[in-house]
């Protein structure tokens, strides 16, 4: 019985090592497409890139409360403005294979619910970005 447990342990250890090698470096990049970050419009976003990458969901969450409940439609953190700048030039959308939102979110495996209700398409007319 003790021998069998030891054998099973060894097999498991080998399997884990092999899995670890397979997961490293190049092969991971091949399995999961790296996100495509194409900035289509505008020189700078409403906050520094690092802050935007980490906190954009917080900004949107905060803004949605202000807009829906208080009627404050400030352009700075409005989702409409995000889409107007970041929608792809070809498809006019932030979703799709190389969409600004969807490519990062599929890489990070984080589901994105905004566009269940909001339109992912850019509206005609220039976007206003104010810092």
């Amino acid at each position, binding site marked *: 019985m003790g021998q069998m447990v030891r054998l099973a342990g060894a097999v498991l250890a080998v399997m884990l090592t092999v899995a670890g090698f397979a997961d490293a470096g190049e092969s991971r990049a091949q399995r999961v497409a790296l996100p495509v970050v194409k900035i289509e419009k505008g020189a700078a976003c409403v906050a520094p890139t690092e802050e935007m990458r980490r906190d954009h969901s917080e900004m949107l969450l905060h803004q*949605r409360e*202000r807009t*829906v*409940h*208080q*009627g*404050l*439609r*400030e*352009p700075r953190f409005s989702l*409409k403005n995000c*889409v107007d700048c970041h929608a792809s030039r070809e498809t006019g959308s932030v979703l799709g294979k190389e969409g600004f939102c969807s490519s990062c979110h599929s890489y990070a495996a984080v589901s994105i619910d905004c566009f*269940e*209700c*909001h*339109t992912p*398409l850019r*509206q005609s007319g220039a976007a206003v970005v104010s810092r």
Partner: protein
Amino acid sequence: MNPERREFLGWGVAAAAGAALAPGLRLIELVQARSPQEAASALQRWGLLIDITKCADCEVCVTACREENGWTGQGRTATDPQWIRKVNLRDKRTGYAQTLPLMCQHCEHPPCVDVCPTGASFKRDDGIVLVDKHICIGCRYCVMACPYGARSFVHETVSGQKADVPRGKGTVESCTLCVHRVDRGETPACVEACNRDGGKAMVFGDLNDSSAEIHHRLRTEPSSQVRPDLALNTGVRYQGL
């Protein structure tokens, strides 16, 4: 202190207070379009006045609402969303027929807000009753609570939404009094369309603003609420009902 002297001092204090308040200060602010940085305020209460005697036998308001807010039916009347509808009334004895548009009445004491378990159904400070679809769980208590049948549930996946009017499956929705237009200082789409192509039966305005047409007409002409017995103090009023 004798009475004359007391009266004289009283007048002096009143004059001083008047002089202190007068320059550039109004106790009640005039109503105008808000800037995007200014929150909706309880100084205003938006409302509608609909004169049924002028309401033509058309669907201009319904079509305009549908186009503005992007709610389209799939031809399934039981489950299609409906923000505004035309109701036809007929007196059984005399045969006298009337038609009127019915939508969310934007009550001061909305039953839909009372029953909402998540706080998604709420009344904005300026009296507009809305659904915060971010926190709506689709339980439809509000649909049952509304005495006007104004709310509908989105049963099917939605695509092609308007940028200002997000809509999605699994949430409840109703007339927003075109809140995105009101915030820009415009009138609701139904009112604009009725005054352009319809019977010019609808007036939109601030019920608290004594200089507004709606305020003047409600003060000087007879009007009524639908189901006044419920004491909901609706923001939408009717004439000729």
